[in-house]
């Protein structure tokens, strides 16, 4: 398990007061953050720009030392036993960095494999397996500079898996990818967790992706965790807005008034159509069962029913609104 206890990352910056004078200021990108990632689990790390996600990932991946607090990976200290920890982890970032463009895909993997102390048949087998996994076997001898963006990203994934890490950090892994490639990548991430039991930390601006993949989500704001739970529970606790659209056989005015009376705190709009009534409801709870009961009791046919469930995106937007208010 990866465990971060009370980690902070602070920087001393110089703020220029005038041409001759500057003042030192301490700015903390991450403050007293607690986080854990278990094997076989996908954990999301969300926040607005500048929230401290990337700094957190850099600390977890041993690239940055925390100013205070402790990170352990299966009991090994990420600062004191950095070399030991590096063997168990890897990171994949979005974009087209972290690869040598003048080398071929296969040469890149061979280079990184050797830096992870792999060699001989073991390395060659691993390279062949990964190239096959990411669908680059046919392009293994092509220099990376000739790869498309999607191919580079797939090679990055293979690079991130070359040492068969127990824990993987994915920093915006689908950034700028086409929908089919992104979907394929999401499938791969799911398999890595469920079939290969890897612990994965994911940051992404695509919230549907986080909602689809993550077992737990941490939401950070200005370097501090403000929420931590399953995506479903976060949505339920933050977003109080359900939108139901229901079309029934014609409703009498009396029944419409009865519904309005019973559903206090809800916005209801009835539109009488030729043979039916269309109803739009905005409610702080799921009003589906209420309407189904009414229709059953009053012998009204339901012609159409659509419930728009709140998504993680709505939760983040609500939180952002609350914070800026």
């Amino acid at each position, binding site marked *: 398990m990866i465990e971060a206890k009370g980690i902070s*990352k602070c*920087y001393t910056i110089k703020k220029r007061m005038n041409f001759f004078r500057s003042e030192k200021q301490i700015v903390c*990108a991450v403050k007293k953050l607690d986080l854990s990632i278990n094997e076989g689990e996908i954990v999301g790390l969300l926040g607005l720009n500048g929230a401290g996600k*990337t*700094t957190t990932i*850099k600390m977890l*991946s*041993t*690239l*940055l*030392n925390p100013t205070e607090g402790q990170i352990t990976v299966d009991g090994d200290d990420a600062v004191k036993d950095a*070399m*030991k920890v*590096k*063997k168990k*982890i*890897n*990171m994949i*970032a979005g*974009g*087209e*960095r*972290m*690869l*040598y*463009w*003048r*080398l071929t895909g296969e*040469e890149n993997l*061979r*280079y*990184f494999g*050797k*830096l*992870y*102390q792999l*060699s001989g048949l073991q390395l060659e087998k691993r390279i062949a397996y990964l190239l096959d996994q990411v669908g680059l076997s046919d392009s293994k001898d092509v*220099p990376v500079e000739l790869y498309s963006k999607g191919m580079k990203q797939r090679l990055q994934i293979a*690079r991130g898996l070359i*040492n068969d890490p127990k824990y993987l950090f994915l920093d915006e892994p689908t950034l700028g990818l086409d929908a089919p490639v992104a979907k394929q990548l999401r499938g791969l991430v799911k398999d890595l967790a469920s079939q290969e039991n890897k612990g994965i930390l994911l940051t992404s601006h695509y919230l549907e992706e986080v909602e689809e993949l993550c077992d737990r989500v941490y939401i950070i704001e200005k370097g501090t965790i403000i929420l931590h739970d399953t995506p479903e529970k976060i949505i339920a606790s933050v977003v109080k807005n359900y939108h139901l659209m229901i079309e029934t056989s014609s409703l009498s005015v009396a029944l419409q008034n009865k519904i309005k009376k019973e559903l206090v705190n809800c916005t209801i709009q009835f539109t009488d159509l030729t043979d039916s009534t269309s109803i739009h409801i905005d409610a702080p709870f799921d009003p589906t069962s209420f309407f189904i009961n009414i229709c059953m009791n009053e012998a009204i046919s339901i012609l159409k029913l659509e419930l728009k469930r709140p998504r993680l995106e709505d939760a983040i937007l609500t939180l952002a609104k609350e914070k800026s208010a």
Partner: protein
Amino acid sequence: MWLSISATFWRNYLVMRRAFPWSFFLGHILSAIYIIIFAYLTYFFVFKGDLSSSFSAYAGTNDYLSYCILGGLLYSFSVSLLMITSRTLITELREGTLESLLLTPSTRKGYFLGYVAQGLIRIMMEFLVIIAIGSLFGLHLQQINWFHVLIVLAILILSTFSMALVLSSFMLFFRDTYITQNTLFVLMGLVCSITFPSDFLPEGVRWISHIMPLTYGVDALRMVWIEGVAINDLLTPLLKMVILGLIYLPIGSYLMKRMEKYVLEKHFG
């Protein structure tokens, strides 16, 4: 460490094969050729082949052209080695591969050694081209103890490599290659007995020549090449190079470790 050395060696070899750095290769050869031509023209057309007795006393030879050609040869050798070593991490930073490199549990020593070992192929190619051109200007190639030349070069490589680590940390700190390295190279050209003995320099400047391994490397190479001295007589300059290397190595290693963290915090924090 061996895997890191071989991995870096092959990576750079493949990159060099696909995109040979012709500008650096020609630039280093040309800088030596300019030194040789400048010495040739000034010797024959300005000083009319007349050397002062103090030059002979300080340089230990009357063969001014060979003196300058060997100075240019080793200056180019040293500059190439310094450039290859010191630009490594800043190049990784610029190409966006520093993170992926620092994520690995590879040793930095292995990485640098692989880099330098591969770079020596290019440096030796430059070395041979400059010798060939120097021979056209009067550099003799007979009765040279090549084994002694190799010993001088090997020790110069070790001490220059150590010095390059210090230079590299400055480059990372300033995130600059051009001004930092060229300031050092101009200084080396001036104080390291490349075209004239450093004894001609004023006292206040001469001490700089004593902290440059190149000064002793050039002295030692000239003793082998021009005077043909025995290995025992080379011990003093060789020892001085070793001592400088031993001083620069821990300083460079310490600074590099700090600079890696500094760059990561500045760049990725």
